[in-house]
């Protein structure tokens, strides 16, 4: 007896042994009552199949897990079949799994004997859908009325085109509910496994699935309601096709790296354009994707924006219609919070492995960062809310273990705020003079003059900082860009401890030359910054300051927001701190460069216009002159 596993119209023939095996593997990876397999266990399993990683990537894509964002039973089964196909030497394609295939082999799992199973012809009603039929609305309606067949679990398959509008995503939980129950109630769903299709064959089977959903909603409602609740609770595996999985994210991050090695920086518009044009999507669609993903509208894509854009491209290529607005799961804040967490983790633990005092020191950094984050001018409520969160989190966290997460969250938010604020700011520049003045004023007030009374720090043995501050009072006003590497920018909430730690780092630096270089480069930049007009300068400074806060947060890997600021001397771990400090400085410089470059181009533009004006005036003057001479 052959059973089929319908997956959104992909009707796979599965023999009994296959089914058994697959369900066993699935339950291994996905302990009930969850509905979808844990990504890590699935990953392990796949790796056990000893296929090369890009094959595995391909398999995940083809089986639809990438798109739907999780490994539901359908995706899992398809993936297993694909693994079998790949192991038999077939290309990773849906077509391959139509044929008879041995069971997939996984090392360290018991190897089953090969079993042949029926060809598609044997099974009733099994038909295979050619990839990527376009969704026709009329077919949708037809299947709504006529189709009684219950579709298999998540109706999304790589082949079939998905619903045209996000509203239909609402239906998905229903079908997902169906799928969920499968693992638990296999007997009950013996029938559903056999999908007979009558009318909706030629057209998008997924539409059939959707059509069938409401039909079956009532019948299976009761049994599924429980599972659905579970599904709701497991927010990680939702049906949201706009949710990016870990694998997808990793892939996107690698792509980002190929374009722009610094993950904290952005990809310029032209680079992104070239890159996405390669996807062969039509330009208006790419334009729309850009509009959706470039949230701060600055003509550049940060890492989360890039991931969102890439995800949209992938979705579009898989047949999804682009949404009108950016889905919540693709928002940069969301993505940043989600993605930066794992990225920070390793750095975090690295730092934890160092001595605690080091942690305290950087803790101070982080506190000052947050404080400066408050200072940075911002207009959006988001920033303010996040700030409040920051403060609360600051107060709340005591246990060291929990601190990492909080800090990450905070720094992520800080970084997000900063980057958002940063990007939002340049825009206000382009408008009327009044708004420029406003922006200027805003830029002026919060970062109150760096030469603050706190210049003389408690442990001010290191004169460098004092001297530096005094020297650069003027320079600071005029756009002080990366100050001496370990020394944090002299921003308002610079606490004494911070200065202390800076001071300590300072003498500890065994690389005076690089310091000197950075000092001089900082001064050079200061000098450069001076010639531009005043408003630009102030803007630059606030931007620089804003820049440095996100810079600090990713680079300063320690967490902890212990309430008490301890001003004692931390023990220095010299070389690593130095390295970090240098890296920090390098990154700061790079960002400052980017900002300066943009500033430069804008100023050039202004200059051009001013030139034009001048020429116009001069010609006018010329015209008038002969008259007066007479």
């Amino acid at each position, binding site marked *: 007896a052959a059973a089929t596993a319908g997956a959104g119209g992909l009707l796979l023939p599965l023999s009994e042994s296959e089914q058994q095996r697959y369900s066993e593997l699935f339950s291994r990876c996905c302990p009930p009552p969850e509905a979808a397999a844990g990504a890590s266990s699935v990953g392990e399993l796949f790796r056990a199949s000893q296929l090369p990683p890009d094959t595995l990537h391909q398999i995940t894509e083809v089986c639809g897990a990438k798109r739907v964002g999780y490994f539901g039973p359908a995706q899992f089964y398809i993936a297993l079949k694909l693994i079998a196909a790949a192991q038999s030497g077939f290309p990773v394609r849906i077509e391959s799994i139509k044929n008879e295939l041995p069971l997939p082999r996984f090392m360290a799992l018991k190897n089953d004997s090969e079993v042949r199973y029926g060809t598609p012809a044997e099974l009733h009603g099994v038909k295979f859908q050619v990839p990527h039929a376009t969704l026709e609305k009329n077919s949708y309606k037809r299947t709504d009325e006529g189709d009684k067949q219950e579709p298999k679990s998540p109706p999304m398959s790589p082949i079939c085109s998905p619903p045209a509008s996000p509203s239909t995503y609402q239906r998905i939980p229903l079908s997902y509910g169906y799928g969920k129950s499968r693992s638990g109630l296999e007997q009950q769903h013996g029938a559903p496994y056999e999908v007979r299709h009558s009318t909706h064959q030629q057209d998008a089977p997924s539409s059939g699935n959707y059509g069938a959903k409401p039909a079956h909603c009532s019948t299976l409602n009761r049994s599924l309601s429980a599972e659905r609740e579970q599904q709701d609770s497991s927010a990680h595996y939702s049906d949201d096709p706009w949710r990016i999985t870990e694998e997808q994210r990793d892939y996107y991050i690698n792509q980002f790296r190929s374009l722009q090695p610094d993950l904290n920086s952005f990809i310029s*518009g032209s680079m992104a354009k070239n890159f996405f044009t390669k996807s062969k999507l039509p330009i208006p669609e790419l*334009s*729309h994707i*850009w509009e959706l993903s470039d949230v701060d509208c600055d*003509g550049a894509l940060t890492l989360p924006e890039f991931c969102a854009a890439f995800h949209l491209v992938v979705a579009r290529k898989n047949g999804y219609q682009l949404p009108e607005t950016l889905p919540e799961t693709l928002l940069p804040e969301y993505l940043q919070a989600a993605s930066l967490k794992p990225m920070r983790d390793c750095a975090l633990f690295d730092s934890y492995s160092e001595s605690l005092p080091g942690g305290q020191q950087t803790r101070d950094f982080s506190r000052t960062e947050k404080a400066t984050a408050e200072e940075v001018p911002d207009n959006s409520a988001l920033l303010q809310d996040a700030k409040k969160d920051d403060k609360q989190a600051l107060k709340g966290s005591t246990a060291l273990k929990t601190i990492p997460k909080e800090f990450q969250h905070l720094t992520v938010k800080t970084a997000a705020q900063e980057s958002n604020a940063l990007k939002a700011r340049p*825009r206000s520049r*382009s*408008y009327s003079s009044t708004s420029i003045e406003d922006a200027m004023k805003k830029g002026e007030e919060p970062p109150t003059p760096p030469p603050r009374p706190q210049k003389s720090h408690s442990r001010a043995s290191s004169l460098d900082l004092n001297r530096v501050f005094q020297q650069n009072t003027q320079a600071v006003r005029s756009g002080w860009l990366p100050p001496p590497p370990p020394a944090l920018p002299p921003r308002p909430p610079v606490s004494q401890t911070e200065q202390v730690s800076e001071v300590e780092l300072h003498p500890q630096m065994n690389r005076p030359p690089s310091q000197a270089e950075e000092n001089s480069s900082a001064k050079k930049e200061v000098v450069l910054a001076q010639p531009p007009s005043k408003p630009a300068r102030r803007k630059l400074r606030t931007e620089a300051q804003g820049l440095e806060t996100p810079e600090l947060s990713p680079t300063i890997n320690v967490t902890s927001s212990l309430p008490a600021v301890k001003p004692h001397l931390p023990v220095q771990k010299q070389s690593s701190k130095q390295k970090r400090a240098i890296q920090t400085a390098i990154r700061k410089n790079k960002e400052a460069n980017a900002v300066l470059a943009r500033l430069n181009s804008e100023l050039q533009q202004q200059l051009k216009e001013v030139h034009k004006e001048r020429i116009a*005036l001069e010609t006018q003057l010329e015209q008038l002159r002969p008259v007066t001479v007479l």
Partner: protein
Amino acid sequence: ALVSVICPPPQNYPLYIRSVPTENELKFHYTVHTSLDVVDEKISAMGKALVDQRELYLGLLYPTEDYKVYGYVTNSKVKFVMVVDSSNTALRDNEIRSMFRKLHNSYTDIMCNPFYNPGDCIHSRAFDNMVNSMMMQVC
């Protein structure tokens, strides 16, 4: 009735015209084109203060129907024109200004899109939505 037009230099042909309601569009087009000339006049007459947030242009009133035509010019000489019913007396100066500012914002957003070639007609959905919502507000 509200019509908005965006015309960048140097060609000064409209990249985007949207009117609500959609009847009489031709007439609006005509109105807009004539008003563009007036805007140009104003710009050249202005001299030093080239950056003007907005200009209130009430002079163009048709004998049969009343229209107020507002113009707005950016630093880069992109002209925005709005034609409003005079019957719509609820519209105040500030509102017009804010509408122009919104238009300007959205326009810069479009410019930031690397897939947009300057000089193309504007097909952005986001922009359309913004304009529509603005117009709905007024009418």
